[in-house]
């Protein structure tokens, strides 16, 4: 079975369902995190990826384990899409010894080099530079690995954006810059922070392609990312992809979510939920049946619950280990 949208994209059923599986895994794991936060199982802050699943999914579907992803403070989705095990993520968010970083960092310090995931981050901007460096290392080692930077519209107004994209363009680095434009840098609207009509359009100034896609359409993201990854792997330099998307929850859990956006706007974006749209598309296209999707969804819901249970039951870290790994 094949699926087509308004582009010339063609996917096998396996590829098409895999995209749904990844988005569902992100959504259900995030819902577990939301519940865990509400229950008081999470000692620090968490920024949910709910509503933006199509971006991480569409991009990471093209990546190998040895490609390097550098992510943001809203990065659980990138970690899952890159192949990290949910239990290692949720355990880290809960500050447990079994977390991917042993409870040292929490939500904004998820690392798993075994799947090429080099970190969520508490600082906006550096992902752009670090991913460019991954591209530089690939050039130096003469391999075809690529670096991928996720960042938001907020990151695009940080100096790292200019310096990183400028160097990546000048040196034709194999990097994909993925801007998740969810319209608000924390709570400051992009339209207030910049008179730039388009973030993607800025790529022209650095001498490489910039494309703008509907970030709630996983197929559009998938197609744009596929072209960007091919370009990078074949030595033709970087691409900037601006994905228009929206976070439907507050900037971070527990934060007041009023005064900067309207409930009508939130509801309008919820109606454009990327998972709901994609499920409908798969069924309309005949790629998957309701029963198949329900079965997949039930299995993934269980996986997410098990991951959260594992995390909850895991031990706290041993305080005597806190000075480990400062130096080699």
């Amino acid at each position, binding site marked *: 079975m094949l699926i087509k949208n308004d582009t010339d994209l063609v996917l096998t059923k396996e590829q098409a369902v895999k995209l749904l599986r990844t988005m569902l895994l992100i959504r259900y794991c995030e819902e577990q995190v939301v519940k865990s936060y509400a229950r008081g199982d999470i000692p620090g802050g968490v920024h949910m990826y709910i509503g933006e699943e199509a971006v991480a999914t569409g991009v990471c579907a093209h990546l190998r384990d040895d490609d*390097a992803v*550098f992510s943001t403070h809203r990065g659980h989705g990138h970690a899952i899409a890159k192949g990290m095990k949910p239990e290692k993520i949720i355990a880290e968010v809960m500050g447990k010894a079994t977390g*991917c*970083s*042993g409870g*040292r*960092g929490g939500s904004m*310090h998820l*690392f*798993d*080099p075994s799947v090429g995931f*080099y*970190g969520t*981050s*508490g*600082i906006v901007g*550096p992902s*752009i*530079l*670090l*991913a*460019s*460096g*991954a591209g*530089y*290392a*690939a*050039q*130096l*080692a003469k391999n075809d*690995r690529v*670096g991928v930077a996720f960042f938001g519209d907020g990151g695009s107004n940080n*100096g*790292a954006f*200019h*310096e*990183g994209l*400028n*160097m990546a363009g*000048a*040196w034709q680095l194999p990097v994909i810059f993925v801007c998740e434009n969810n319209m608000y840098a924390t709570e400051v609207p992009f339209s207030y922070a910049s008179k730039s009509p388009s973030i993607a359009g800025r790529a022209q100034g650095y001498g490489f392609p910039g494309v703008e896609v509907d970030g709630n359409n996983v197929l559009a993201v998938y197609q744009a990312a596929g072209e960007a990854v091919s370009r990078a792997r074949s030595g033709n330099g970087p691409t900037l992809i601006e994905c228009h998307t929206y976070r439907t929850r507050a900037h971070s859990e527990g934060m007041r979510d009023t005064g900067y956006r309207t409930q009508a706007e939130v509801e309008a974006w919820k109606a454009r939920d990327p998972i709901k749209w994609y499920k409908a598309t798969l069924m309309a296209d005949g790629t998957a049946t309701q029963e198949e999707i329900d079965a997949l969804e039930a299995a993934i819901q269980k996986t997410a619950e098990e991951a959260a249970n594992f995390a909850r039951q895991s031990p706290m870290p041993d305080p005597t280990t806190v000075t*480990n*790994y*400062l*130096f*080699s």
Partner: protein
Amino acid sequence: MRELTFTDAAREGLAEEMARDDMIFVVGEGIGARGGNFNTTVGLYDLYGEKRLRDTPISERGFTGLCTGAAVLGARPVIDFMFLDFELDALGEIINQMSRLRWMSNGQVKVPIVLRGGVGLASTGPHHSANLFSIFMHLPGLHVVTPVFPADAKGLLKTSIRTDDPVIFLEHKKLMKLKGPVPDGEHLVPFGQASVVRQGKDLTIVGISFTVIEALNAANLLEKEGISAEVIDPRTLAPLDLATILESVSKTHRLLVVDEDFSPCGAGAEIAAQVMEQGFYELDAPVRRLNGAFVPGPYSPPLEAAVIPSAQSIAKAAQALMVE
């Protein structure tokens, strides 16, 4: 033994390491065909080309972050900032990312990277004279290296490049043309081993970077006064070889720390505190510090002379300490 300048010795060390490991690359402004503002890379571009000697845009923060990412992915970058002052635009990347990635990933990633920068006052004015040693000593995850003699410039740079952690490598501009013996062949100097550069019995003077040279000059002046000064070059401020300093203090019972950098929260303050914590009963007098004045580095020679420790001012401070 053959003699080389500080800069030539360091460059020899860099060249040897680059020949040994293809993943070492240097970035900076003018470090390619031009060979570096301070001649740090002369001749290397012809050997290794632009991927390994990468001239950069003036994007200190940008290329510091980029090199951090490259280091995480297996490269071994050497960043040549020319002046430490220029490194300050990159402090966020150094502190938040470079120095913490190993720790915050629970040891899953490593960041082998060397940050070179010229330090110190040399008629260079307020934007080209920073020392700022203690800013870097203050941070977990960084090594801070301050070579003085050419052999150490080479041996410590080679060790810095081979270390799997970030290294802040600080070269005083007044040392760059200093000549001295450098061993032939492989020469590595380990971190955390201070060097007693002059034996003495009446007081210990710890210098930092260029003030080691001035401390040695001061020791010659003091000798004429009948005062025997022992002079120590810590060589690396992090890790700090306190044992060698304590051993000296247990012999001389007096300690003067001389640092061109500012006094408050400085390297001398740290050394003094540690000596008082661990060697208090060996001291016959309070630990004294002699620092550069607490002002930005001035340009005009008489202004500069007024703010930096000299052989004369060190000798005077030592004489005062002897009668405490």
